[in-house]
C-alpha cells in the first residue's frame, strides 16, 4: 500500500484511493464500450478542469480494452453558466475542443463530481451552440446527490451519500500534483 496522501482539508475522509479511482474508471470504460459498439462515433468531452483529465483517461482505457481510441476533447461551460453574477471572480473560460461535425457523434460529457446538475446543463447548452450531436450522455466519477435540475448521469464511478454542506474534493496527479484521490469533508452541521 502506498502511503495515504495528505487530506486537502482538515479532517477530510478518504473515499477513493488511486486504485479505487482506476477501478471505477475501468468499469465506466467497459460500460461505454458495451453501450456504444461503434467507437468511431463516440466523443468523450471533458468539463474543465478535472473532467478533461477524466475524458483523456477514459479514452486511453477504452483504447486498451477495445483497440480503438475514441475522440477526447473539451467543452467550455463558463460562458453558459447561470450563476456568473454570483461570483466575485469570473470563472476561467476554456477553448472548446470538439469534432468538426458533431451530428454523427454520441457525446459523453465527463466531470469529476455531479452535485446540483447546473454545470451539466451549461455544458449541454454550450454543446448545442456548436451543433447537434446524435445523443448526449453523462459520465461522472462521483455522484454526491442534491440535484437542483432533472439531470442524472449515465455512468457513475461512485454514488456517495452526502450532507448538503459537506464538500467532496477530487485530486488528480495530472491536474493537482497530488496523488489521485477522492475526499469528503466533515459535515459542518454535525461538527
Amino acid at each position, binding site marked *: 500500500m502506498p502511503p495515504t496522501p495528505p487530506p486537502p482539508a482538515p479532517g477530510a475522509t478518504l473515499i477513493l484511493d488511486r486504485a479505487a479511482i482506476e477501478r471505477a474508471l475501468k468499469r465506466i470504460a467497459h460500460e461505454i464500450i458495451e453501450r456504444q459498439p461503434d467507437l468511431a462515433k463516440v466523443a468523450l468531452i471533458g*468539463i*474543465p*478542469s*478535472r473532467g478533461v483529465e477524466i475524458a483523456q483517461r477514459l479514452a486511453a482505457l477504452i483504447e486498451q480494452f477495445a483497440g480503438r481510441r475514441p475522440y477526447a476533447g473539451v467543452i*467550455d*461551460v*463558463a*460562458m*453558459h*453558466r*447561470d*450563476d*456568473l*453574477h*454570483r*461570483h*466575485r*471572480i*469570473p*470563472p*476561467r*473560460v*476554456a*477553448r*472548446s475542443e470538439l469534432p468538426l461535425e458533431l451530428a454523427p457523434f454520441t457525446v459523453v460529457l465527463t*466531470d*469529476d*463530481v*455531479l*452535485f*446540483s446538475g*447546473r*454545470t*451539466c446543463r451549461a455544458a449541454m*447548452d*454550450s454543446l*448545442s*451552440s*456548436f*451543433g447537434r450531436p446524435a445523443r448526449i450522455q453523462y459520465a461522472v466519477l*462521483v455522484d454526491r446527490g442534491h440535484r437542483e435540475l432533472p439531470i442524472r448521469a449515465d455512468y457513475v464511478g461512485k454514488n456517495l451519500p452526502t450532507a*448538503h*454542506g459537506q*464538500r*467532496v*474534493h*477530487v485530486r488528480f496527479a495530472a491536474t493537482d500534483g497530488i496523488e489521485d484521490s*477522492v475526499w469528503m469533508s466533515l459535515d459542518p452541521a454535525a461538527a
Partner: protein
Amino acid sequence: MSPTASPAGPIDPAPAAWQHKDLLAIQGLTTAEITTLLDTAAAFKQVGTREIKKVPALRGRTLVNFFVEPSTRTRASFELAAHRLSADVLNISATQSSLTKGETLKDTARNLEALLADIIVLRHSSAGAAQFLAERLQASVINGGDGAHEHPTQALLDTFTIREKKGRIAGLHVVILGDILFSRVARSNIWALLALGAKVTLCGPSTLVPKSFERMGVTVTHDLDAVLPEADVINLLRIQHERQRKEYFPSLGEYTSLFGLTKARAERLKPDALIMHPGPINRGVEIDSDLADSARSVILDQVTNGLAVRMAVLYLCGGVQGGVK
C-alpha cells in the same frame, strides 16, 4: 461542477486571474492579468466559429456605449461583442447627449447608472475621464480611449494578433511608427508589449517621437530605414490630421517620404514581419495602398480579434459585477 462547491454560495469553478471591475489602462496591469485577458479572448474568438455565435454570459446586463468622441470601429466592435454575450446595448454619442446642453460628465453617467447600466464603455477627449467615472460609479467602466492617455482594448487586440500570428510576444522586436506623441494607442501598446517581454522601438519625426519616451523603457529612433530589417512587427499609427498643428512636420508629402511604409521600404523588412495598423488608414500617407492589402498585413485580423478581445474584457469586468448590488 467543482468538488469544492460551497453549499450556500455558487459552485466555484477555477477562477480567472482577474479581479477588476474596470479596465481603465494597461499601465499597472500585471503580466498575468494581461495574459488572462489574451487567453480569455482566445476562448471567445472560438464563439465566432460556432453555429450559434452567441453565448448567454451577460444575459440581462445592460451595456452603454458612451462615446463623447467619434468612433466607428471601436463602438461597433463593443456593440457586437455585447450582443454576442447576450447583453442589451444602448449607444449614446456626444451630439445626442445632454453634454451639449451643459450637463457634466458625472451627471450624465449617474443618469446612465440610474437606468441600471451595468457596464459603461467611455470614449472621451480628456485623459483620465474613464478613471473619473470608475471611481464614482458602481457600474463597470471600460476605457474606450481617453485623450492621449490610453486605449487598452486596442493594445490587447494588437498583442493578441501578434501572439496569434507569431506564437509568442516575448523576445520579439516591435516597431511602432508614426504619431506617438498624440497616440493613446502607442502608450497602451508600449505598456502591454513591455509587460509581455517584447523589445519596443518607437520611430517617427523627432517632433512626434521625442526622446523622453525612452523613460518608459523603449528605444527611440528617427531612422526608419535602419530599424526596418530588425523588426518582427511594424505597427503603423495614423497621422492624426485633426490634431496636427503646423510645427510638427511641414507636409504629409514630406512625412511619407521619410516615414511612410512604401513598397521600396517594405523590401527591407524580414519576409515574415507583420504589418499592423489600428485604422482608419490613410492610404498613401502612412502606408502604401497595396501593402495595406498584402499578405503580410494583418490589419483586418486586428478588427476580427478586436471583437474577441472586447468580449473577453466585458466578460471579465462585467460578468461578475453589477448584476446583484
